[in-house]
């Protein structure tokens, strides 16, 4: 089953990105999840508050704004697309995600079946 692993971080977690220990842990995690043949795509994301740009149509009118679409305490900080036999396995990988030790949250979302 394919899942999107959405990783949310708190402000403190985003600040921690400079910490070499945290970076090393993340590097290892990404390596392990790819080497195990579980992840097939994904990326970390730059800080939402300062770099996000949002686009929407309101009553047919284009609106472009700086910042994320929703101002929440946690922001989407990265994602991985994974292929695992079941949700149990996906949760195993979620439990290993270094963000969770810094207040982060992992949301697992089953992917829609491919239309083709």
């Amino acid at each position, binding site marked *: 089953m394919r899942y999107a692993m959405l990783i949310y971080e708190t402000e403190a977690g985003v600040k921690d990105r400079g910490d070499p220990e945290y970076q*090393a842990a993340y590097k290892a995690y990404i390596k*392990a999840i790819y080497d195990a043949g579980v992840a097939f795509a994904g990326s970390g994301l730059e800080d939402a508050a300062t770099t996000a740009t949002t686009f929407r149509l309101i009553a047919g009118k284009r609106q472009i704004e700086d910042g994320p679409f929703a101002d929440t305490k946690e922001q989407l900080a990265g994602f991985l697309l994974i292929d695992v036999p079941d949700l149990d396995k996906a949760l195993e990988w979620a*439990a*290993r995600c270094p963000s969770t030790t810094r207040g982060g949250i992992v949301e697992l979302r089953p992917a829609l079946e491919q239309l083709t």
Partner: protein
Amino acid sequence: MHPAELAARASYGRLLSILAVRTHDLAGAEDALADAFLAAVTQWPRDGVPQSPEAWLLTAARRKLCDGARRRRTRDEKHVLLQADVDYAAEGDFFSDERLRLLFVCAHPEIDASVRTPLMLQTVLGLDAARIATALRVAPKTMGQRLWRAKTKIRSARISFDVAVEALPERAFAVLEAIYAAYGSGWEDVAGQATASRGLTEEAIWLARLMVQLLPEEPEARGLLALMLYAEARTNARRGEDGAYIPLSEQDPSRWDPNRIAEAEALLAEAARIGRMGPLQLEAAIQSAHVDARRSGSPDDRALSLLYGVLVQMTPTLGVLVAHAVALSRTEGPACGLDRLDAIESTAQADYQPYWSARAYLLDRLGRIDDAREAYDRAIGLAEEDGVRRWLLAKKRALGGATSPSDAIRDGV
């Protein structure tokens, strides 16, 4: 644990088993028992606690079950229920305690091995699905469905609540295995911050004590309890004040719990007197050897490597194979250990952290620093617990002068 909680826990499984023994309907019995407990909560404070609380609860639950049966108009079922009293009292079988019967039902070969542990925790101890799911790291909805399916199977396949004498040792082992799995959920989760995150270690020890009490002639029950007590004895010594992980070889033995170790040693000796060796006693013996080594300051590598060698023959699980390879490397050298790791025919090591830790350690000892670094990275990425992750990161940084991640492996990390 609170005394009232303990008392309720002791009654729960017994009552559930009595209620379900004829109908094979665990879910129905659970509902009826929950209703009875609810009635007790409102009535006892008002009318006083009955002389025999268990009998009161049983009667109340039976009435609920009969009501349910009447509503469903299954006359036979009601008949069976009412008859159960009589038959039950007349039975003088192997099951001195109803909870043993229930444990054996949960470990029936028709019940999928993966659901045996949660089923026991729920039916014998009355834990709710959400709690079990979190401890075993499964989605609560999934856990609820699995438990439901297992109970449906017990009912529809009319899985017997009686076990033939010949099937006893095999079934007993399945029960012990499931209890050990519950313990494992807490042992890996050693962060030790909140008690809620300590998994199910307390519940597992409780169940193992129950097995020792119910099956006094089964040496493996004592072996399992000893094994878990050795591990429990070290709980406090596994963390520094800053929460850092401390491997066995660096732990301060004075921080071990001497009472638990003494109890474990006594259990192991009693088990040995029964004279039937098994994998759980062997694992406990390995723990005992580790304790001796640390206390005396002189590890007996040869003995450990022999013990693991026998264990590998009995239960060649991935964990045991890895631990054996590391033990061998201490007597035969790192190349031999690495050969053993390479020879493991399994795909499960892809995400098995101790395998990569062991590999990194052996590669380091062989002077293959780059390979060791890569293996450490893999292990770090697979670590679930922050203390262990940091410890592995430090090992990676210190590459070149090897100490021993093998400690983490025998520590169950």
